[in-house]
């Protein structure tokens, strides 16, 4: 294998690394020594990077993202150098490379194209577009073209569901892809025009704010929330937050004031504030809009939290798909430092706080707060055992508040307008508003902000959805509701949601949707615990068997039994919700599943006739008697 790589290597493409996501290393000797110049170059690059990142092992992921961008993979030499310079075992570097989907041990194309495989992108014509793209670029999906110039693959939802089909080209978000754009892209690649020089049209991202409410309706001036909080008193402001009834907007709904108070009460002198901007739930893109147009309020909310709990350092964990927001966000941070709203003596008070941006690298699991903290520490995003909870032992084992983007924005508004202003809206247990990301079969996909308690029917009217079959509330990990349930309300009391709202009309096949979601969870499982690691893969097999028409009555029972086990015994929220698409649709539409079944009591899990192929080849027979007719229908 190594020899082949060397023989076929393209100029500028280092083929030395021979790890892949599921293979162990093989001999690399043919690479070493043949490219001494490049190795020296690489060594300097790594040394500079490590220095820029303070030589801290917790920066490993951030460093690897830059290595990947520079060489389109993480070469074996880099792994060795990083291990040495960061004083960590090489296995730690390898495991991080193999964990995050945007990092590769084997070279990807100089132009690395990833197309979002979210159900919403599919509904907008992604499958046909992918075929067209593959044909135009003469590359297979999942592969690197022979000359090393381009690679093409699927990726999980990139958060552009309101303007898909979307994707990433060398990490930059591209939207509203069509055949015209694909032709243009193929030409740009053929003439090797660097992505930085492509027309901005490819990378246009619209906010699409369709309905503004409490949060999106007005913008508070920079520093106003902090000045209000200092004027009122920090303890009093925390009480206002308590009065507001604000609960975490990521979906879990923990009371924000309580979380901040717990962190404040911890004995440790060092504390951290973390904003979870790893918006990975398919169909969710509201944080993208907040980060783009309400970043000051987000940072204001984080700074407020820091002042209240006594933190000096904050982190914004930005999902890798939103890399294009990194520079604009850095500029906002810089402006705030210059205005005295970050750094020392914030707003003239004895408060010191600053914010660093960390970028993810393609791992849905990092949206789970303890996995996010692991990732911030430069490790694989594997959820921790709880207790202890992050409020007592989070980043580097110190008390840490992790909140969603929307939560911090809401907290900043509460500091200005007071708790009653917020609590006057919404329902008993769900105060205030919720920002929804609406996509799928509707005329006006985009961002809608409603007071909690709004009915599904009302939302469907607003977004221009007709002939609706059902809605996926809260993304794949949430609930599928059918058109008999549209009087249900969005609130923690009824339908809790992180904001994803995907509309399906009557032309859609529920099982196709469920299959997409089930594949997603199997792909995103971190693999830490048995029920989720093996269970999500088994669930995919079992569902596919039924979907492909090989299932029998017993298979449905098995599907449900397996789903229940994964739900009740998995380590974290990913596993606990991975079977939801199956369980919630099986409960509502058993007839759709039953229609797929064969009318016999047992079907094996594999193709019996296909398994006889070897025997047919050996006996050089292909007559009807050498085939097994799988009857029963």
């Amino acid at each position, binding site marked *: 294998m190594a020899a082949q790589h060397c023989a076929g290597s393209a100029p500028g493409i280092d083929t030395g690394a021979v790890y892949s*996501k*599921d293979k*162990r*290393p093989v*001999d690399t000797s043919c690479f070493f020594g043949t490219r001494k110049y490049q190795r020296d170059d690489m060594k300097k690059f790594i040394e500079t990077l490590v220095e820029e990142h303070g030589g801290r092992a917790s920066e490993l992921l951030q460093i690897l993202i830059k290595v990947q961008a520079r060489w389109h993979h993480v070469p074996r030499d880099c792994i*060795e150098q990083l291990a040495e310079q960061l004083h960590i*075992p*090489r*296995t*730690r570097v*390898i*495991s991080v490379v*193999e*964990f995050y*989907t945007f990092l590769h041990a084997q070279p990807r194309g100089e132009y690395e194209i990833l197309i979002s495989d979210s159900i919403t992108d599919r509904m907008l014509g992604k499958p046909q577009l992918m075929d067209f793209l593959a044909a135009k670029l003469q590359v297979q999906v999942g592969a690197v073209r022979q000359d090393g110039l381009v690679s093409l693959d699927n990726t999980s939802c990139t958060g552009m569901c309101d303007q898909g089909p979307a994707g990433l080209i060398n990490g930059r978000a591209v939207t509203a892809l069509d055949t015209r754009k694909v032709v243009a892209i193929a030409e740009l690649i053929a003439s090797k025009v660097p992505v930085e020089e492509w027309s901005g049209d490819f990378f246009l991202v619209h906010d699409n704010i369709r309905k503004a409410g409490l949060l999106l309706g007005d913008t508070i001036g920079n520093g106003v929330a902090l000045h209000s909080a200092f004027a009122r008193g920090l303890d009093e402001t925390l009480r206002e937050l308590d009065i507001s009834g604000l609960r975490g907007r990521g979906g879990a709904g923990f009371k924000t004031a309580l979380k901040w108070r717990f962190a404040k009460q911890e004995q440790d002198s060092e504390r951290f504030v973390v904003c979870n901007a790893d918006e990975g739930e398919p169909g969710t893109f509201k944080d993208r809009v907040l980060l783009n147009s309400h970043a000051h309020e987000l940072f204001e909310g984080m700074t407020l939290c820091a002042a209240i709990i006594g933190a000096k350092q904050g982190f914004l964990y930005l999902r890798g798909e939103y890399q294009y927001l990194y520079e604009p966000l850095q500029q906002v941070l810089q402006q705030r430092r210059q205005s005295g709203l970050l750094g020392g003596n914030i707003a003239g008070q004895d408060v010191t706080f600053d914010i660093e941006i960390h970028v993810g690298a393609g*791992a849905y699991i990092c949206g789970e707060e303890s996995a996010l903290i692991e990732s911030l520490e430069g490790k*694989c995003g594997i959820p921790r*055992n709880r*207790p202890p909870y992050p409020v007592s032992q989070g980043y580097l084992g110190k008390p840490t508040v992790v909140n969603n983007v929307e939560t911090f924005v809401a907290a900043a508004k509460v500091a200005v307008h007071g708790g009653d202003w917020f609590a006057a809206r919404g329902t008993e247990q769900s105060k205030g508003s919720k920002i929804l990301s609406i996509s799928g079969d509707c005329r006006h996909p985009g961002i809608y902000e409603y007071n909690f308690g709004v009915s599904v029917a009302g939302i469907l009217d607003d977004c221009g959805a007709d002939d609706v079959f059902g809605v996926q509330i809260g993304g794949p990990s949430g609930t599928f509701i059918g058109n008999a349930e549209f009087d249900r309300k969005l609130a923690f009391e009824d339908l809790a949601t992180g904001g994803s709202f995907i509309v399906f009309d009557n032309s859609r096949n529920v099982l196709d949707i469920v299959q997409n979601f089930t594949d997603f969870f*199997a*792909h*995103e*499982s*971190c*693999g*830490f*615990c*048995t*029920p989720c*690691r*093996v*269970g*999500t*893969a*088994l669930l995919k*097999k079992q569902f596919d068997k039924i979907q492909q028409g090989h299932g029998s009555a017993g298979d449905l029972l098995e599907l449900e*039994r*397996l789903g229940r*086990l994964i739900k*009740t*015994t*998995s*380590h974290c929220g990913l596993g606990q919700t991975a079977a939801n698409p199956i369980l919630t649709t099986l409960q509502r539409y058993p007839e759709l599943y039953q229609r797929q079944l064969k009318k016999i009591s047992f079907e094996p*899990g*594999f193709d019996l006739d296909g398994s006889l192929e070897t025997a047919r080849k050996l006996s050089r027979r292909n007559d009807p008697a050498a085939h097994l007719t799988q009857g029963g229908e």
Partner: protein
Amino acid sequence: MSKTISIDGRQVEFVDGQTIMEAAAAAGVYIPHLCHHPDFTPHGSCKLCTVKVNGRNCSACTFPAQEGQEVLNETDELREDRRMITQMLFVEGNHFCPSCEKSGNCQLQAVAYYLQMLDDHFPLFFASRELDASHPEVMIDHDRCIFCTLCVRASHLDGKEVFAISGRGINKHLIVNSPSGKLQDSALEAGDRAVDICPTGAILRKGIGYRVPIGKRIFDLKKIDAVSLAEQGGAHGE
């Protein structure tokens, strides 16, 4: 006054800081497990030790014991869940007990017997995994690895970090800390704790195969619930 929790209705004493697993073990109550070993930091990944604490599923090996907890351990539902989890581990790798040197000393096999697992139930993955027999004294049969990380934790205590788990989801695999990725180029030595810690037959000591004949091995003589945690961890062919 000592503090107590109830496990299946039986009062079990504990001291602050103990997990449910530790309290249970001290009282002689067996909770099935594979990734747990009393000498190492609890991991909580295999999920075999799932118990119901006040109505909610928790991993006994990581969950702290707290005054008045009602813990359910030996219920039909939990036994069924644990059996399915064990079956998952069997189909994920390639476990052929009759041809495995660890048979009779293997915790995975012993737990399966304890849970009355009679078949694999789930479709096999037929994972394609390599064997590493490069080291003169120790071999790794990756087919049998269940990602419990006991070798990772043991090697950490050995001060060597020879092992790590890499990859994601169903593509998880054990990797070795050496320039070639092979065991022979690692710092592993025969005297290391990591050599004998594997609960399955994934890491085996060479040269001692079948020294103890089949039929006279640890779990041939006693069911796993009657073997102490410390004994189980040291279960190898010696």
